[in-house]
């Protein structure tokens, strides 16, 4: 009798924690999104009211638009640029571990520090403007975070910068899993390096690219720290993302029902994206391992 219980006893602590702090909140987020709840008064059932409010709220559409734009720019960059980074460090050369370490450093740095660091780099009198002007790339300094047309892209650049190393490691594992014999045969037949890259490396990396696309799109939908630290959603709401919208409504306005409805929209978007990504990966026939 006791024997049969053993596996459940092993699982018990984990299931309790995940049950109470992940599954229960998930269910109750759904319930709260159908109510009018401000932490002080009791829940009042509100049906789909909160969702109707969302549809009519220009701030919500703005946040959704910003998040989707974020995704459309950041995910392709993070899916391909780290391949080159991985290829660059995938060589047995003296000191290569140091370079890998340096490229990975931003990944372990807390986003609060990363955000502050870049805010300082982006200063109007700061180093970035100085470097770009000295290289002759622009004539007038730009207030990167305060100019509505560029601020969102400036924040995206920071997300890319801090994530590169993480995806580089995934691709490094990918590159190292490609059988060397393929390149040897190609070399013997006089296939050029560029064609080797196009017809061996890239196809063999497909499952890794799919994985990175999924992870980076989930991450892109969750951007918050960089925005909070660098712009606070400004200028003129240009950098307000979905998560920032949820945070503001929940913990500044204490409009929990409304914030939960927005959170459900965020979840739906993330979920749809992951499914879409996985379907694309499957269509290309590589997800079957």
């Amino acid at each position, binding site marked *: 009798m006791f024997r049969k219980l053993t596996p*459940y006893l092993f699982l018990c602590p984990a299931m309790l924690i995940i049950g109470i702090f992940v599954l229960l909140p998930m269910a109750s987020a759904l319930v709260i999104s159908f109510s009018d709840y401000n932490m002080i008064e009791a829940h009042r059932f509100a049906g789909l009211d909160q969702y109707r409010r969302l549809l009519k709220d220009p701030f919500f559409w703005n946040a959704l638009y910003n998040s989707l734009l974020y995704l459309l720019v950041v995910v392709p960059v993070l899916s391909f640029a780290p391949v080159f980074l991985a290829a660059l460090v995938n060589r047995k050369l003296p000191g290569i571990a140091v370079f890998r370490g340096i490229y990975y450093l931003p990944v*372990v740095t807390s986003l609060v520090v990363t955000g502050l660091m870049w805010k*300082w780099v982006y200063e109007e009198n700061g180093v970035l403007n100085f470097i770009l002007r000295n290289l002759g790339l622009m004539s007038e300094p730009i207030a990167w975070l305060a100019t509505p047309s560029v601020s969102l892209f400036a924040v995206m650049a920071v997300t890319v910068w801090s994530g590169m190393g993480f995806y580089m490691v995934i691709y490094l594992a990918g590159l190292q899993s490609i059988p060397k014999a393929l390149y040897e045969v190609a070399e013997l037949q006089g296939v050029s390096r560029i064609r080797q890259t196009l017809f061996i490396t890239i196809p063999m990396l497909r499952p890794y690219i799919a994985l990175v696309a999924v992870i980076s799109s989930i991450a892109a939908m969750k951007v918050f720290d960089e925005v909070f630290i660098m712009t606070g959603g400004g200028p003129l709401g240009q950098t307000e993302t979905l998560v920032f919208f949820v945070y503001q409504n929940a913990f500044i306005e204490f409009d929990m029902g409304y914030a939960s409805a927005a959170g459900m929209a965020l979840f739906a978007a993330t979920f749809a994206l992951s499914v879409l990504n996985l379907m694309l990966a499957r269509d290309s026939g590589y997800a079957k391992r």
Partner: protein
Amino acid sequence: MQSDDKPLPRMRPPTAGFANRRYGGGFAPAGQVLLRYAALIAVALVFIGPFAWLLSTAMKSGSENIFQYPPQFLPQQPTFQNFGRVFQALPFLSYFVNSAFVAAMAVSCNLVFCSLAAYPLARMSFAGKNPIFLVLISTMMLPFQLLMIPLYSIAVALGLNNSFLGLMIPHACTAFGIFLMRQAFLTIPHQLEESARVEGVSRLRIWWHVMLPLSKPALATLAVFTFVGVWGDFLWPLVIMDDQAKFTLPLGVNKLSGAFGKDWRLVAAGAILSIIPTIAVFLFAQRFFISGALKGAVKG
């Protein structure tokens, strides 16, 4: 683009020696190697530049104009004063202690709970095994930001707001950790466990004496990932901690920049202090981070 990071030809038939030409076996043109180093250094500057600029700012003395244009790359009279000033401006030392305490709790909880849960998932057959595993894995997709609102209510209801336990507990056991440990356990040969079972050793002791010692790299990976995640966590502490005495470092750094926003020397010094422990852990555990972490992730 080739993968030449694994031990080279030893195990390969001698006919493959041809391909050695490009593996730097005396034939690699020095120019190519130089070019690669040039590229490596150029990219490294992009990654390390902002850190260097922050450090330089933190070491500038009060008499220096940090907003001057063109910017002064190196401090004229380098000083460590600003680091001391951080501790006077805010109770940074207690932020350090708080962060360390929360991180230590989260790391230990993860090591124990994740590896406990992973054992039956890797090695026992029981009713509901697959559904449980699926539910666990699918929680990895849930954005924390969605759970945050009800989590906050639950924490308030349990009296856990404004407490380190409340700060830590959503991180106490992660599906990612369970998955990682399960992958590690799956690679351990069955024979070891079976001979112990024949001797009548209990499952709990097998877990402790056989499974855990053989999974040290995975445990180290889990510890480092948890540490880095918790150390840098910002949104959840921001939501749950009001009591400034209980602030963790990211909140402290944020407060520093809020209160002394114009004094970038001070903000920079605080920011640098706050990441020193992570960098130390990272340097110490780099090999787990960069190679061990994702070995099983894709093929799994």
